[in-house]
């Protein structure tokens, strides 16, 4: 389980951090993609009774943002 902090755009409010189940061998400092929906979490884990809401489903290589205005 990893503690995850959502990233923000420069003027946005900082979202609250949360705990997510890691499905990708991510490490501390990695930028990751997190699925925070329960049904999807159960599909990813292939367990219809998993009591998990947040699952890390990918590790981000790069992000391209254009025109923040």
């Amino acid at each position, binding site marked *: *389980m990893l*503690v995850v*902090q959502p*990233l*923000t*755009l*420069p003027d946005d409010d*900082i979202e*609250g*951090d*949360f*705990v*997510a*189940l890691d499905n990708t061998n991510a490490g*501390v*400092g*990695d*930028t990751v993609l997190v699925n925070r929906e*329960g049904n999807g*979490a159960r599909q990813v884990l292939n367990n219809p*009774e*998993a*009591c*998990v*809401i*947040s699952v890390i489903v990918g*590790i*981000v*290589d*790069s*992000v*391209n*943002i*254009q*025109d*923040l205005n």
Partner: protein
Amino acid sequence: MLFGRVRGTAVCTIKYPDLVGTKFLMVEPLDKDLKPTGPLQIAVDVVHAGHGDLCIMVRSREAALAMKDNKFVPVDLALIGIVDELVVHDDGKFDLTLKEGTTHYA
């Protein structure tokens, strides 16, 4: 899922019939720095947590899935783990802001 600290218990003699025998604990939601993030809530305990324990909680429909036998119960917060070890790096160590352009995350 989120962190929670057990602060007390709740005993309900009159309750939903399928919740007979479940343990209700009063928990305080915490953030990664273990600071409170909201009001005290009641959570169902399935991991035998005790007073003062730092726990992982799951909310919403998945909390009902944490119940052992009958998962069709009106539960929306459950303790699913007791934290043995927590290591959180300072915010200052990471750049948490997305900027224009292409950012590579090695």
